[in-house]
């Protein structure tokens, strides 16, 4: 008999993802679902879906799900968590959602040490709306709203939310990971699992920034996207653990 060694996680519903071919949103969904499976928490978890390509995340995760308005997932999650402090609450947000319109909400959820986990998908672009510049868009990167390439003089530098939030006292764990190859995917999962575990232990705010691709709006093929991520995004967004309450303690 054959033994299953890797298969569709229980914490995902049957719905097919609507993501474009090769879009790594799906990998991150799977990782989160696997963690829910492994921790056995899908019946005690409430996920908060953002406004962004992952807006339909509420269709995919097989746990209670709550829509947020654009950028406000951390506030919505705060509302939920304060009502159910014993439940697991996570937000899943894009870079437009978290690093632009939702800046105040993520900063203050982090600063309060709100006991939630944020999965932050940095794909250096607004995917959902058709490829506008994000605060995380790279220098020179062309988007529909930076048609001549991002100009730092006008638009500023790509913002590093992970570094910025790690300065605060509230977060228990913040790390940046990537999902451009299986090795990094495994590391990403490790980081995500730790974030969920720390939440379970009531340690405070945790966030995992995941470098992710948007083949459609980057205008390149899925495989090239993984390479572009590694070559261009990683130097600007170094992978590392930026805050770890367990190392301090």
């Amino acid at each position, binding site marked *: 008999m054959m033994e299953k060694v890797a298969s569709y996680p229980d914490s995902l519903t049957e719905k097919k993802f609507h993501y474009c071919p090769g879009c790594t949103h799906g990998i991150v969904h799977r990782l989160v679902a696997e963690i829910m499976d492994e921790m056995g928490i899908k*019946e005690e978890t409430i996920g908060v879906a953002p406004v962004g390509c992952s807006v339909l995340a*509420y269709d995919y995760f097989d*746990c*209670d799900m709550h*829509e947020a308005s654009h950028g406000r997932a951390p*506030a919505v999650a*705060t509302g939920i968590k304060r*009502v159910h402090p014993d439940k697991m609450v996570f937000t899943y947000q894009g870079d437009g959602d978290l690093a632009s319109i939702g800046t105040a909400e993520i900063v203050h959820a982090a600063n309060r040490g709100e006991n939630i986990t944020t999965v932050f998908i940095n794909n250096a672009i607004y995917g959902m709306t058709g490829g506008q510049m994000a605060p995380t868009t790279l220098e020179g990167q062309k988007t529909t709203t930076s048609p001549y390439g991002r100009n730092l003089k006008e638009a500023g530098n790509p913002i590093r939310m992970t570094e910025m939030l790690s300065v605060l006292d509230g977060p228990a764990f913040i790390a940046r990971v990537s999902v451009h190859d299986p090795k990094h995917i495994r590391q990403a999962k490790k980081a995500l699992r730790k974030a969920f575990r720390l939440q379970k232990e009531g340690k405070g705010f945790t966030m995992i920034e995941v470098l992710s691709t948007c083949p459609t709006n980057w205008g390149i093929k899925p495989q090239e996207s993984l390479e572009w991520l590694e070559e261009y995004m990683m130097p600007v967004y170094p992978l590392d653990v930026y805050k770890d309450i367990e190392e301090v303690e």
Partner: protein
Amino acid sequence: MAEKQLMKGNEVIGEAAIRAGCRYFFGYPITPQNDIPAYMARELPKYDGVFLQAESEVAASNMVYGAAGAGARVLTSSSSPGISLKAEGISYIAGAELPCVIVNIMRGGPGLGSIQPSQSDYFQATKGMAHGDFHLIVYAPSNVQELADLTFKAFNVADQYRTPVMVIGDGMLGQMMEPVEFMEPIDPDELPKKEWATDGAKGREKNVINSLALDPRDLEILNERLQDKYKEIKAQEVMYDEYKMEDAEMAVVAYGTSARIATKAIDMAREAGIKAGLFRPITLYPFPEQELAATTEKIEQYLTVEMSAGQMLEDVRLAVEGRRPIEFYGRMGGMVPETDAILNKLQEMRGE
């Protein structure tokens, strides 16, 4: 418990909410309603409740969205500019059909305006709060006792219809003290469980709180449900009050603080031989349209009095439909109508 207390309107809101089983407050400071968060900050911990000062009204609105979705009775309060910031979130709450209570203690506008009492957010509260076809149930108490009763009621009605409910007052009502008697408190643990809430899918299908529909027909179906709900609310929830209307030939239409002030002018008018009465909408939405329309049988002239440039005036006109003349007297920017001026206006209309 049934003993009368002398309390500030704002604090009464807090106390009535707690008695209605509300254990969650999310808000952001703004004058003239700061006693509400202060009261909640002081009292909620005594009930194991949560007071959280949000980073902004936008965040507060979305915390309410989350907490309401999670099944709680939840309150937020603000004043005019802060309500404008909550608008998007309120649209989501309405779209996702969640119950919650929102208090607006209005101040002068537009912009930063002034912190003095005003009623210039009527349109916002009853019509164009935000994008999309939705309404709030809007209660407009005119004294502190009513503030207590309607705040209490607001939570029940919100749950009943799964809809956001607004209690609207002005700075004066929020700041003044009057005697008040409270309802018996409700134990939130004894309230019926909300089967649709996001509180963990143990032993049931997952719940989703949501206002998005990719297919416009699905969204239309949601909207049809909302419209049916509003029809039901119009049929069931209209509230209004009358003062000396039995034999009145002229009616002042006013709500909240303006209505209180008008009663005095009406007494003065009666002394001066004018048969005036007061028609006071208590629900601004649903507006007592039919009830007001019915008064056109006997009432010859109407005077709408507001602390605004004339907003409820449109609903009065919609009810009266040109059958009788309607005049308007309003003060703006935080100024309060004067009884003398109302009286003068009534006399003038009478051709006196």
